[in-house]
Structure formats: structure tokens, C-alpha cells
């Protein structure tokens, strides 16, 4: 017997000049996993912040067990057993796993000594329940990103939350980890918990959720209805107001083109051994591997951030030694679109213009002449427009834009730089469907125009949808190379075979 445990009724939230949420409603049942869908900017994040007590609604009411409540802050939400796993890392790096899990509960008695033995014991239980093999005494900073995510979930679970929000929990998890997480979420659901699941990955939503609320432009596109009878296309239509025009993959063979980037028997200071790899002009080569296979590291070695200790690197057929990233970009025309947008990709506190123009300042600068915003604007604006970046102006601070728009700016930066070779690392992390599709089209189009692209992604469907050839990397070595057939099942099997062949051996 399910019942409504939490309800948001006709909630609105205003920001100066913007109505972020307009009379949005949502109700969560016990024993249910409820999907919250919407494009970036549709109002998901204000709604989440209202539910978790960060914002107070300007209109409308919240109900818990049928009684109206006014949450005064995150702490109040926790006290009402509304837990949340945030999108950004909310862990204290130097603290142990156990301590992070129990951080909330230490607060009641600031002067009562912490019983670490008990803390570790309790933490172990939660970790076991999640099927995680982590010593609770390990400092969180030593964990991989995926494990940190699991710790955050353990943290929320340990609060015995009746309502648990999961904001893109699978964004940085591998398929295997995702399976473990889903098994756990189902178990929680079966014990009567009410889960709110926020994700861009519709496959996952369809797999695990039983009810759904979709937001579009700050309003309900559908309000807390059952997932039954809804197909992927239906969801997409509700989210973006029209159907999904899936990028059509077509077989291309560009191996006849001149080689743009070639690695021969390359060893690096980070531990790569005998890496052979070639990317031709106009070709997209996928570099697939599990987390920790050394893909990003290889990209950074090519960019000159870390040393190449052996073998030969050729750009456009000429052997080169790249000593710095600046050399790679300005002298050899290689660009790198980082997976870590916030740390490595963009300067969040600076404007759109500064971020998009950073790669071209040197080109545009003339000795002693002023490098005005106007000059940069002329150069950069066409790309910003072409990519349909939604920003009030080019002076907007990038940190205020949505993930998708941020990613578009990262791309615009490289388009403006006019690089011949582009290394793209996890391009669609934290990006909505529309932008993702758009990016895929763009990358195909770029390669058609002659740019050589090395694509790094853990998202197998993305890999199959984009790459011409796929190189499989495992443990800092190349395990093999496949021609992409465009068939998801066969390709994924072939790739996994390559990886597991080694592990079996």
C-alpha cells in the first residue's frame, strides 16, 4: 500500500527578472523511485534546492506526511529525514570515509569525544550494504571519483532518509558500479523508502523508475504520473517539446587521408608503454578504456603536460617534441577538451568572452596595440552563436551557466582556436539530451570538415555513435583496435572482449 510521503504543491520561485519555477507540483510515494526529468534550465535544480531546504519557495507549500512544513535550511531538511546526494562532491577530502558518512551526527555534541571505533563499525555496515570494499578509515581523497559517489550515497542512506534525492548519481559511475547502485536503490524502494532520481540518462530512468515528473521551462510538463506506457520518445517529447532527432551514424573510412597525429611505440612518464595510435585527417578515433586505463593521462602527455619518455610523436607527419601545452596548441594546433570542466576546462569565475577567447588572445594580440574586448568578440561571437550558447551576454560569468552551455563554451574555445587535431575527453558528462545530440552532430561535422578527433569516453553508446575506429586502452597499454560497425551490441561485446581477454590471461 503506497501513500504520499512528500508533496510540493504549486511551488514557485522567483529570481530577479526570472521566474525559475512556476506553480510546480510533485508528490512522492513510499516504496517508489520517482524520476525528475528536464532539460538544463527547466527548473530541476531550484526545485531540488527547495526540497532540500536551501531555498524557500516564494509561493506554494511543501507537505510532509500531509502536514505543511517550512524548511529553514539544509539541516532542517536532514532533521526531517530528507536526504540528498548532490551532483557536486560534498565530501571532506582529508576526512575518513566513516567520518564523512557520519558528519551530520557529530554535530549534536561538539564536545563529546568521537568514538572512531563505533563510527568505523557503523560505516562498514553501510559500505557492506552497498557492496563496497572500502576500509572506512581511508581518507576520502584517496578514493576514485566513483567510489566517492558511493560514499555520498552511503552517507545519505545512513541518515535513514525517508525521502532521498539522487542528483545525477550515475554521472561518474561505470556500468558495473551503476548496476550495484541500482540493485541497492531497488532494495531501498522495497523497504518503503521514497526516492527521487534525477538523471539525463533516459535508459537508466526507464530501467529503474516507476513514476515520473517532467519539467519544461519552469513548469510541469507532466506531474507525478506512472512510467507505465511511456516510451523514450514520449519522455523526450515532454522534455524538449518535440521528438528526438537522433544523430545518424554513417560508416566512413578516412584512413586514406594523411595522418594528422601519430604515436609510435610511445612511452610516457606516467607509465604508458609502447602505445601505437594514429588519427587521420577528418577521422574520429575513439579511445576506450575503463576508469584508470590511462586515457586522460595519455591525452595530457600528447599535449605536453607530462613528458613522453620513449617512442615518437608525429604531428602532420613531422616528428615533434612537445614541451608545453602552449606549444601543443599554438605551434602544433592540438586542442584538448577536458573531462573536468570545472577544474581544467573553464575559468568559472571569468566571463564567457574571456573563456572562449583564451586560446586566441595570442593570435589576436599585436605588439603594443590594445587587445580590446571588441576584437575578441568579433573573433569569438560567431562560434558562440553557432553553438547556440544560451547566455544573457558575453560578459556573463561562466560559473552561472548550465553545464551544457559551459560545455559549449569549452568547444567554442577550440573552434575559435582553429586546431587541426582535437582531443575530446568525456564530452557529454552532465549535459542534457538536446545538447548532447547537438554536440555529437557538431563533432561529426567537424571531422567532416577535416579536423582529426581523438575521442575519449566511457559512455559506450556515445562511442559507438561517434567513432570511426575504436582503440582500446587497458592498464596504460593499447589492447587492440576495432573498426566501428555502428552496432551497439556487437561493438560493446568486441570491446569488452579485448579488455577482458587480458584480464583473463
Amino acid at each position: 500500500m503506497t501513500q504520499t510521503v512528500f508533496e510540493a504543491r504549486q511551488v514557485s520561485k522567483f529570481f530577479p527578472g526570472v521566474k525559475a519555477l512556476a506553480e510546480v507540483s510533485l508528490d512522492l510515494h513510499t516504496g517508489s523511485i520517482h524520476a525528475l526529468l528536464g532539460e538544463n534550465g527547466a527548473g530541476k535544480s531550484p526545485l531540488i534546492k527547495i526540497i532540500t531546504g536551501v531555498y524557500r519557495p516564494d509561493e506554494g507549500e511543501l507537505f510532509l506526511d500531509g502536514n505543511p512544513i517550512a524548511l529553514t535550511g539544509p539541516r532542517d531538511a536532514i532533521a526531517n529525514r530528507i536526504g540528498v546526494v548532490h551532483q557536486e562532491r560534498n565530501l571532506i577530502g582529508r576526512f575518513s570515509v566513516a567520518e564523512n558518512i557520519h558528519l551530520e551526527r557529530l554535530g549534536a555534541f561538539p564536545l563529546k569525544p568521537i568514538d572512531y571505533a563505533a563510527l568505523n563499525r557503523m560505516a562498514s555496515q553501510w559500505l557492506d550494504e552497498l557492496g563496497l570494499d572500502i576500509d572506512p578509515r581511508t581518507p576520502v581523497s584517496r578514493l576514485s571519483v566513483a567510489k566517492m559517489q558511493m560514499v555520498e550515497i552511503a552517507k545519505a542512506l545512513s541518515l535513514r532518509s525517508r525521502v532521498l534525492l539522487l542528483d545525477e548519481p550515475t554521472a561518474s559511475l561505470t556500468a558495473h558500479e551503476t548496476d550495484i547502485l541500482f540493485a541497492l536503490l531497488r532494495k531501498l524502494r522495497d523497504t518503503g523508502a521514497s526516492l527521487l532520481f534525477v538523471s539525463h540518462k533516459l535508459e537508466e530512468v526507464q530501467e529503474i523508475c516507476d513514476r515520473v515528473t517532467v519539467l519544461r521551462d519552469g513548469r510541469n510538463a507532466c506531474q507525478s504520473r506512472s512510467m507505465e506506457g511511456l516510451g523514450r520518445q514520449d519522455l523526450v517529447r515532454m522534455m524538449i517539446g518535440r521528438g528526438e532527432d537522433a544523430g545518424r551514424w554513417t560508416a566512413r573510412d578516412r584512413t586514406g587521408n594523411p595522418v594528422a597525429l601519430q604515436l609510435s611505440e610511445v612511452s610516457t612518464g606516467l607509465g604508458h608503454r609502447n602505445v601505437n595510435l594514429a588519427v587521420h585527417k577528418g577521422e574520429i578515433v575513439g579511445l576506450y578504456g575503463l576508469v584508470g586505463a590511462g586515457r586522460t593521462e595519455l591525452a595530457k602527455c600528447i599535449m605536453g603536460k607530462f613528458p613522453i619518455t620513449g617512442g615518437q610523436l608525429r604531428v602532420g607527419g613531422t616528428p615533434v617534441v612537445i614541451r608545453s601545452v602552449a606549444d601543443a596548441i599554438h605551434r602544433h594546433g592540438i586542442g584538448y577538451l577536458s573531462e573536468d570542466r570545472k577544474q581544467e576546462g573553464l575559468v568559472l569565475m571569468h566571463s564567457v568572452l574571456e573563456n572562449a577567447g583564451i586560446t586566441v588572445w595570442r593570435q589576436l594580440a599585436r605588439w603594443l596595440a590594445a587587445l580590446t574586448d571588441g576584437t575578441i568578440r568579433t573573433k569569438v561571437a560567431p562560434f558562440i552563436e553557432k553553438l547556440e550558447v544560451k547566455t544573457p551576454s558575453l560578459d556573463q560569468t561562466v560559473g552561472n551557466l548550465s553545464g551544457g552551455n559551459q560545455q559549449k563554451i569549452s568547444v567554442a574555445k577550440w573552434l575559435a582556436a582553429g586546431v587541426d587535431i582535437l582531443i575530446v575527453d568525456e564530452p557529454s558528462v552532465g549535459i542534457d539530451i538536446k545538447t548532447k545530440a547537438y554536440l555529437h552532430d557538431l563533432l561529426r561535422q567537424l571531422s567532416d570538415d577535416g579536423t582529426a578527433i581523438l575521442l575519449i569516453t566511457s559512455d559506450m553508446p556515445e562511442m559507438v555513435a561517434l567513432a570511426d575506429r575504436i582503440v582500446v586502452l587497458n592498464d596504460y597499454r593499447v589492447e587492440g583496435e576495432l573498426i566501428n560497425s555502428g552496432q551497439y551490441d556487437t561493438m560493446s561485446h568486441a570491446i569488452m572482449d579485448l579488455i577482458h581477454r587480458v584480464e583473463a590471461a
Partner: protein
Amino acid sequence: MALPDSPASPATRQAKRPMARYFLTNEFGLAALIVLFAVLFGVTAQGFLSPFNLFALGRTASINIMIGLAMMVVIVTGGLNLALGAIGVCAAIFCGFLIQDAGLAWPLAIVLALALGAALGSINGWITVRSGLHSFIITLATMSIFFGAMIFLTRAQSYRGLPPELTSFGRIKIVEIVSPLLVVTVVVALLLAYLYRLTALGREMLAAGAKAEAAELSGVRVGRVFIICHMLSGAIAAVAALMLTARNGAAIPSMAGQLGQDWLLPAFLAPVLGGTLLTGGRVSVLGTCLGAFLVTMLTSGLLLMQIGEFWIQSFLGLLLLAAVLIDKSRRMLLDRSKLS
């Protein structure tokens, strides 16, 4: 004022009309405070508006501003330069030595002194970049080294054999109340503003300071840019020291106190009040100038008000606190009126 942790949430800020945005800037807040206190002192403090006091105020402020700018250009990188006083004194003494003992023409001596300042600054930068340590500890050590070496080599000798062109520079009055030193400061400030707004190098400094990793992966030579920042800091510190030399009429080792530490307070005060982020990546040349001017004016006004001399420092502290709080409440009020 410098409220890096300003609560004005980004989402609220963008939607403001340009006029309101202007009222929210540090620069406007500082300017308003300066006007406020100027009126206050003009009414209550005898002699505040006398030509000599205005002249002296401008002269003192010009040096304090310059010291603040020398620190500001390093704060841009998220670092600090504790050695700027020591570098300045070294450069000034070197200049005095070149003129008095080596018999060089004074323009050449000044250029060489500035070069020494830049060189010492770049040593700081080079060690910081190569060691990967925080510039705090590096410049703490080099502060001792530079200053100690200078004292050792000169035996704390003063150089006063300076040509009148140089020494009168500190005393000339343009239109009764303006010191030429103030003109130098304005020129340097304008050059810096040009650097940060209108050159690739300046933009790279800000990008590298805000997020070194991102800047590097976008093709900025972060190490080199940081070294240039430190070099600039050394050169500006040298300018400040030469201005002080002109004002004192001699190059003296005690002009910035033991190890040059007397400069640290104005050096930090000005950029931080002016809205330069201590973590780097954001800079306000105008704010730094106004910040230094405000503090100098407060000191000057308090001295004139003849508050018991031993209590002046307390009042300066209270006024600073009041100034910061007034500015903060102004912002919050404006923010709130825009929200409703």
C-alpha cells in the same frame, strides 16, 4: 569593499540594470566612503582642506597606492609577495649607490634600479614556480635574504648625494596641491589597467590566477606568466621605493622598516579593500587606488582631529571596521531592494 564572499548570488546579479550594477561595485562603494569621510573631516578637522594638507595627503597616498599595486599584481596569481619592502629598499639603495658612488647619470641609475627590482622579483617568481611551494614561504625567506644582503653590503649606509632633479620631485607642488608623485602613481595605475584590460598578457595573468590548470590546458604558459607577475611586483616596489627616496631626499635603509615589513600593512590593505580576490583571478586597479587613498585619508583626518595620539590606532581600526560594515550593508540593502 573587498567582499570576495559576497552573498549576492550570481543568479541575482546578472539581471540587474547597468545602473544598479554600478552602485554595487567596490569602486563605487569606496568612492562614496571617501566622499563621506572627506566631508566629515572637512567640516570637523581644522586644517584638513588646507593646501598643504591636501598636498601632503596626495603625496603619502601616492606611495601607499604604489605599494598596494606592487602587492596586487602578485595577489592576482593567488600568491603573495612579502619581500616587496625588501626589494624596494634594495632598489632604492642601489639607485643611491649608482648616483653617489658610481657617478652614473640619474635617469640611467633609475632604470638600473628598476631593473634590479624586476630581477629580484623574478627570482621570487622563479623559485616559487620551480619549487611548487606557496609564494608566502618563498618570499618570507627571500625577504630576509635580499634585505640582509643589502644591509651587509652597505653597512646600513644612507645615500643622500642625490641630484636636485630627483629630490625636488618630492617637494614640488603642481597647482598648489598636487604632488608629481601622484602623477607617477596615476600613470602606473593606468598602465596596469591597460595591461589587465587590453593585453593578452594581462588577460593570461587573470586566467592563470583564477584557475592555473584550466589556463595551462588552454595554452597559457602559466609558469612564465607567474614569474612575470612577480617581476612586475618587484619593479613596482622599486618605483614605490624610488618615490619614497624622492620624498625623503635620500635613499635610506630604514625607509620600509626592519626587513621592509612596514610596507606589508598598506600593501595588503589597499588591494583587499579594493576588491582584489586573495585567491587570485580578479583584480581592480581602481579599487586598489581608492582603497589606499581611503586609508591614508582616514589616518590623516584622525591625526588632524587631535584624538589622543595613543588612541589614534584604535580609532583607525574602528573606522576601518565601520567603513567595511557600511559598505556591506549598502550592498545588502541594494540587493534586497532589487529582489523585492
